């Protein structure tokens, strides 16, 4: 789960990291009211889950009320990488002396935490890596719970920092490290970490990704979770399946992520596209499958459905019953092929056969896809 900038800054504040004074507004009236708290003017920042908002006008400066009105009118409702701006962060303007880059992230390559720092902040980390690789410092931490502040200080010495600024920077890094650990973060990035004209360090931006699987132990963060925008994805969440909306006309239901991905790949190799990615995980019940089939049938683009299941931990007889219940409302006469193997496969096959559903009894997803496409062609011809 990604946090918006102001949500991330709240976590920083709780961890003792300074952030500029600011408030979130959702309308012009609110903006005017809050603006009175910033007599020297304010930064007006769009709150979206996307990088690069500054480059397309998602961040503006307002010195007076007229400028504020223009800025808020432009940004509110603006679309940034497919997301509509509904919230704006108004912040005091800070005087910047220097910009640093600082982050902690999970390194899936070795199961470590990477601490990354650069005295050249403000641009994308990818950009720093390309333009100034010598300015990028990385430390692999295998056990984050054992990190001491003096170790970070000693590491940051390599960057050329010294004296008070070194100590202050290490202090922010240590606080960020604790924040990372305490909140089960996957990524905590401050870019830029600014040194103000009076020598204070402040997080001018916040990019935070929280581990979805750990949200159960962070109820305050969980409550920030936003509803998925897509109507199908919202329904899928309620059913308890993993779903991603796509643009093709073949619906997919698979009992594992790899199998679903492979089904999409096979479709692509036949010049077709999937209407969705759908993975049930290990919790198949008749209801879950019936709801999944109904969900796909309710998508007007779907002309065929491939059900691709393995019964390892999943009960195949229940799955078969679910398919039959799900397609009982198949008004559009959508083509359906079920490939199902594993525990209780014979019993499941006979249930499906009795109901007149086309089944594939081998491990070949290719065969199932070809059969489905044939049937879809046939329906079109009718």
């Amino acid at each position, binding site marked *: 789960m990604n946090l918006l900038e102001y949500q991330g800054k709240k976590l920083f504040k709780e961890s003792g990291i300074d952030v500029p004074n600011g408030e979130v507004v959702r309308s012009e009236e609110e903006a005017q009211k809050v603006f009175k708290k910033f007599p020297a003017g304010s930064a007006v920042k769009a709150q979206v889950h996307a990088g690069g908002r500054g480059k397309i006008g998602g961040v503006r400066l307002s010195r007076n009320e007229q400028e504020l009105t223009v800025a808020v009118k432009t940004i509110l409702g603006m679309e940034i990488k497919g997301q509509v701006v509904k919230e704006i962060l108004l912040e005091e303007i800070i005087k910047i002396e220097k910009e640093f880059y600082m982050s902690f992230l*999970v390194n*899936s*390559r070795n*199961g*470590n*935490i990477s601490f990354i720092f650069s005295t050249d902040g403000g641009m994308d980390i*990818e950009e720093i890596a390309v333009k100034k690789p010598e300015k990028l410092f990385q430390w692999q931490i*295998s*056990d*984050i719970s054992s990190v001491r502040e003096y170790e970070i200080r000693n590491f940051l010495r390599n960057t050329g920092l010294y004296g008070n600024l070194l100590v202050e920077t290490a202090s922010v890094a240590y606080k960020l490290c604790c924040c990372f*650990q305490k909140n*089960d973060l*996957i990524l905590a990035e401050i870019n830029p970490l600014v040194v103000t004209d009076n020598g204070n360090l402040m997080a001018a931006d916040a990019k935070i990704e929280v*581990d*979805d*699987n*750990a949200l*159960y*132990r962070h109820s305050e963060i969980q409550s920030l979770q936003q509803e998925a925008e897509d109507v199908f994805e919202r329904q899928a969440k309620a059913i308890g399946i*993993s779903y*991603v909306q*796509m643009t093709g006309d073949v619906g997919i239901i*698979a*009992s*594992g*992520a*790899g*199998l*679903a*991905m*492979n089904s*999409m*790949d*096979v*479709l*692509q*190799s036949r010049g077709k*596209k*999937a209407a969705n*990615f759908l*993975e049930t*995980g*290990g919790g198949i019940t008749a209801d879950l499958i019936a709801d999944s089939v109904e969900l796909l049938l309710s998508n007007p683009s779907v002309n065929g459905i491939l059900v691709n299941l*393995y*019964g*390892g*931990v999943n009960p195949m007889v229940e799955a078969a019953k679910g398919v039959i219940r799900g397609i009982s409302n198949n008004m559009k006469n959508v083509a359906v092929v079920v490939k199902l*193997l*594993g*525990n209780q*496969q014979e019993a499941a096959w006979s249930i499906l056969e009795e109901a007149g559903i086309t089944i594939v009894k*081998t*491990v*070949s*997803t*290719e065969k199932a896809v070809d059969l489905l496409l044939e049937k879809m062609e046939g329906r079109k011809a009718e």
Partner: protein
Amino acid sequence: MSIYLNKSTRAIIQGGTGKIGRVQAKWMRECGTNLVAGVTPGKGKTDIDGLPVYDCVFEAVEKHEANAAVLFTPAHFTKEAVLESIDAGIKLVVAIPEHVPIHDTMEMRRAAKAKGAVLLGPNCPGIITPEVGKLGIMPANLFKAGRIGLISRSGTLSYEAAGHVIMEGMGISTLIGIGGDPVIGTDIETILEEFEKDLETDAVVLVGEIGGSAEEQAAHFISRMKKPVVVYIAGKSAPEGRTLGHAGAIIRKGTGAVNSKIQVLSKAGARIAPAISDIPSILKTLSIICQ
């Protein structure tokens, strides 16, 4: 011989007293797995279809010389259960549960490394050595014994790959699902190393998927292997920036895509299967006897 799971394996099941655990314990025993005990704190002195259950892993190890563990614990309790097993001296720990927090996994991984234990998972189907047994959830009826080793990030896709291999008259020495999470207990190259040493494995099939760089990392070891490695990577059709089911399966800014993985692996000498159904025919062209 096979790898990790063999005739000298004496396994416990943790979390085997729940609804799913009980069924899985039964299925594991039906296909020959040597399960010696169950461990669920609070359920000591009960049983799972005749299998004695203890409150502590240490007790199961003392009484049954257990040397392996398979877990069906709730995600939130998985870390404690894994750490207990590793601390009790168990050398093969198979963590089936999905939705384990990543910070928990990092701690489990560290503990396993420190004690020289092999941790498979989390979020994995487990391990099967056909005709010997399985610690996991794979449908045993689909597998036949043979001389092909198989490593997969995805459970369901490992069944499909094994199915194609078996359909063409070959068989599996050991199949391992390493797990679909961004951080997992054991890296691909560690398992490749075991297969390279295993006298009952002639060739290895690696079923990868988009996201992360586990496959690329394994490339270095593959280039030094004597045994051939056939690779299939799923997710050609995946859109960038969306997580597909497995938390690890996400293409981030051009990294983790199928093509970049294939390039690195093929340079390292791996044979690339364009489709999963191409795996057996590639295996057959290799100058080894696969039976």
